[in-house]
């Protein structure tokens, strides 16, 4: 069992942040490792209890506060003061309602609230999937990816959360914008075809637009917006909110965001009318001047194998190529011919060495 994954799921469960899928994954892990059950139960008990010994405000804190408030307002101590507080009441009452609503469901000792019913579709390594969303939009999900959306898919916006890579053909609906959330960027779509790639174990998140128009926002920087045109490719470094580069010529759309947002164009391989970035939808494994490190990640997901590169200097050598219906040995052999390395395939592990 991957320890980190287990504790991540446990922490999500305790915090009430776990999705239905997280909880199912945790249950599966516990089935495999029943010895963790007792520990988890104790942790759960411990989590849910509050101590009477936590530091508390000393008695009379509110009165002392009122005196300080009074001083800060330079008010005489009696008459007008009271009237002012009454004025405040109406405004604050509304807020309190909001505060109560917010606090109440999470009061100490209550059960962790269940998340809204969500649908999750996920693919394992070595497999792909095509799904239709409730609004008719179609999504091709690449290997080792996951898409989550509200079951009803109603409300002001159609929102999906993506981990991994997916190709979207979004049904046009001006009144209900379609938003794709990833860990790094949010993509606002108005009816279009695009590919979004956001694997947590890769350095970059990429958005490629095929038709239509989309607006991309960087997570944590809602002011940084960029509009993509067809065949634009946006590359954002994961976890940084900094765009590193686009494939091909980088174009800056706006001077003031140029350091953060840089764009490039998608690449077309000869013979193919489809951009390299989305060839996977046509069941083609494609590399486009990609580092061996990235190539290895793609191969891992495509063939469900583990790829080990023994020598760091190999990781940044670049490869291009398109493969259709080729086996793992055929792909590796082709890469070896163009590159300068040796490899061995043993069971489900590929080792690449100089």
């Amino acid at each position, binding site marked *: 069992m991957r320890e980190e994954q287990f504790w991540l799921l446990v922490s999500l469960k305790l915090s009430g942040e776990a999705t239905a899928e997280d909880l199912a994954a945790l249950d599966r892990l516990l089935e495999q490792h029943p010895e963790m059950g007792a520990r988890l139960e*104790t942790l759960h008990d411990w*989590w849910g209890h509050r101590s009477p010994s936590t530091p508390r405000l000393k008695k009379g804190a*509110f009165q002392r506060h009122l005196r300080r408030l009074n001083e800060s307002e330079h008010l005489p101590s009696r008459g007008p003061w009271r009237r002012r507080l009454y004025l405040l009441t109406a405004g604050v009452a509304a807020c309190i309602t909001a505060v109560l609503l917010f606090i109440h469901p999470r009061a100490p000792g209550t059960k962790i609230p269940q998340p809204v019913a969500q649908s999750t579709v996920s693919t394992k390594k070595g497999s792909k999937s095509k799904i239709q969303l409730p609004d008719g939009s179609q999504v091709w999900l690449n290997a080792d990816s996951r898409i989550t959306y509200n079951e009803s898919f109603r409300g002001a916006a159609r929102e999906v959360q993506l981990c991994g890579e997916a190709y979207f053909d979004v049904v046009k609906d001006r009144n209900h914008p379609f938003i794709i959330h990833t860990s790094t960027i949010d993509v606002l779509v108005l009816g279009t075809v695009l590919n979004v790639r956001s694997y947590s174990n890769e350095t970059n998140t990429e958005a490629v637009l095929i038709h239509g128009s989309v607006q991309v926002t960087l997570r944590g920087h809602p002011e940084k917006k960029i509009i993509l045109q067809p065949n634009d490719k946006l590359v954002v470094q994961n976890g940084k909110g900094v765009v590193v580069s686009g494939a091909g010529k980088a174009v800056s759309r706006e001077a003031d965001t140029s350091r953060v947002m840089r764009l490039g164009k998608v690449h077309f391989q000869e013979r193919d009318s489809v951009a390299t970035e989305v060839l996977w939808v046509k069941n083609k494994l494609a590399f486009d001047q990609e580092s061996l490190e990235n190539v290895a990640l793609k191969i891992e997901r495509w063939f469900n194998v583990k790829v080990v590169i023994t020598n760091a200097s190999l990781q940044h050598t670049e490869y291009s190529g398109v493969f259709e219906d080729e086996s793992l040995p055929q792909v590796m052999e082709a890469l070896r011919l163009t590159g300068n390395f040796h490899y061995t395939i043993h069971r489900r592990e590929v080792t690449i060495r100089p």
Partner: protein
Amino acid sequence: MKAYKRLYELLSEGLYRFTYSMVRSAEVAEEIVSDVFIKVWQIRSKLSEIDNLRVYLYTIARNFSLNYLARNADSRVIGLDSLSSGFLVEGNSPAEIVISADLVNQMRRIIQQLPPQCRLIFQLVREEGLKYKEVAAILDISPFTVRNQMAIAIQKIGAAPLLKDIFSSLGTYD
């Protein structure tokens, strides 16, 4: 008056715990909480425009605490990462629950030894019952950092030797 007092009662203790764990002085923490509510008073006409009042007030408390720490630390720039680790609110009454006082103490020690930012995140999630998104807003970090730091905290707490013993002692009865 009633409403203002009610708001104070609702939020002051949580804000105090949070502030206390940053400044570690009862007087200073009380003063900062008071400052936060003076701010509430000053902006009372705009309160209804605030999206999530609770997160907003925690954010103010955090800023006031960091300002205080900066003023009192030889003009060094203070970030959450450089807070010295120390007191943390601990949440259990051993008498109430099945787990032993020793185990609770062990967990408390582990929590105290967490890196400062990790400890604050843990406290806001567990003690104040805040959501990851809200903690991220308060501490001005990404929700994914909150998620990762929480996983790290729980992994460390889950590795408490006495917690492991629960299973091994059960095992020896077989």
